[in-house]
């Protein structure tokens, strides 16, 4: 049975526990970064940050500031376009595990040319993969494949203190997503689920994706 995540962004407080838990579990080092006028730090996903909480603020018509948080990560697509593109160049560079539904970059990524890498990165509708010059690897969230295949939940979900992130069987997560969406409609009339049929990391937004992140949802 494929697994899925639900990310209810209306519950996220941007504590960034998930971002740090991901970094620590994958033994990724700290990187040099700069304050760019937002709490979003580092400014973008990179080989050392496979999970990143994105910050976005806007003013409503009645001059109130709305601050939205978007804990960005690979969506582990049901039909991953990155895998299709990679297979044209190096079959097996990106694979999809049939048990968990995890989309994984393998060591074969090192055989990809610069053009292949560019094509894969451009193809991702969610702007997720990043290229690591040092290891010649494509990097992105691996659904904590080692944990999940040993019966544990991904580290980001485990660390989440607000219940923003939930992990489980896809069928159950879809049902929970619909239940939460219905409940949220009262307080967030514009709430919607991002591409629930196509992805295994289902984001629940409180309003239009423009107020979260350009690549928050595809449809």
């Amino acid at each position, binding site marked *: 049975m494929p697994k899925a995540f639900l990310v209810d962004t209306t519950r996220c407080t941007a*504590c*960034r*526990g*998930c*971002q*740090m*838990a991901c*970094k*620590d*579990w994958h*033994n990724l080092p*700290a990187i040099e970064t700069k304050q760019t006028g937002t709490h979003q730090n580092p400014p973008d996903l990179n080989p050392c940050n496979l999970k990143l909480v994105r910050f976005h603020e806007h003013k409503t018509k009645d001059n109130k500031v709305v601050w939205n948080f978007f804990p960005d990560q690979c969506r582990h697509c049901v*039909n991953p*376009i990155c*895998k*299709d*593109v990679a*297979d*044209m160049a190096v*079959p*097996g560079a990106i*694979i*999809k*595990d*049939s*048990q968990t539904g*995890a989309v*994984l970059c*393998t060591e074969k990524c090192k055989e990809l040319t610069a053009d292949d890498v560019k094509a894969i990165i*451009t*193809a991702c*509708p969610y702007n997720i993969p990043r290229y690591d010059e040092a290891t010649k690897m494509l990097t992105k969230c691996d659904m904590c*494949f*080692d*944990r999940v*295949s*040993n019966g*544990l939940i991904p*580290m980001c979900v*485990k*660390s*989440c*203190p607000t219940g923003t992130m939930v992990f489980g069987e896809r069928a159950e997560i879809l049902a929970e997503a619909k239940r939460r969406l219905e409940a949220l409609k009262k307080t967030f009339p514009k709430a919607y689920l991002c591409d629930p049929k196509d992805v295994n990391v289902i984001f629940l937004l409180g309003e239009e994706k423009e107020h979260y992140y*350009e*690549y928050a949802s*595809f449809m």
Partner: protein
Amino acid sequence: MQSTRRSFLKGVGAGVLCLTLGQLGFDLTEAKAYAKELKIKGARAVTSVCPFCAVCCQIIAYERNGELISTEGDPDFPINEGSLCAKGASLWSMYTNKHRPTKPMYRAPYSDKWVEKDWDWTLDRIAHLVKEARDKDLILKNEKGQTVNRLETVFWMGTSHASNEECAAIHQSMKSLGIVSMDHQARV
């Protein structure tokens, strides 16, 4: 950007459909090859407490051959139920960080250099300074002539992790010196 991505996808999607079908069955073996052992497998699990705020989230520290492998929230602890914030989630990085001081650091008055010292020297130095300050500054009586025995030049910085009993012991020992200013680290 969005529209170019979308049109690009349409073309690619149609082109690779037959390729993908032809490669069914390929996935499983590859995923098995990818699967690595859990890094915490066989490691000793020790419960500990996050050192930062007064919530005192419990953590599980995984240790192997005296080396810290990983840390994560303890799901059995009723306060945090396995979850952690960014500070608690980064304990492994904090512990293994090369910038983390592991010995007392001393900067002499007017010096611009930090020097490593051992605990014996450090505790002796603190004791001497407390005594010096107390001998010099202890206020025995206030303006009205009432006995106060107050030491206003020493500040006690405790910890939000202290239990009631520890707080009582700290409070009484500090009060016996006349110290009136006390707080814990989570508020600074």
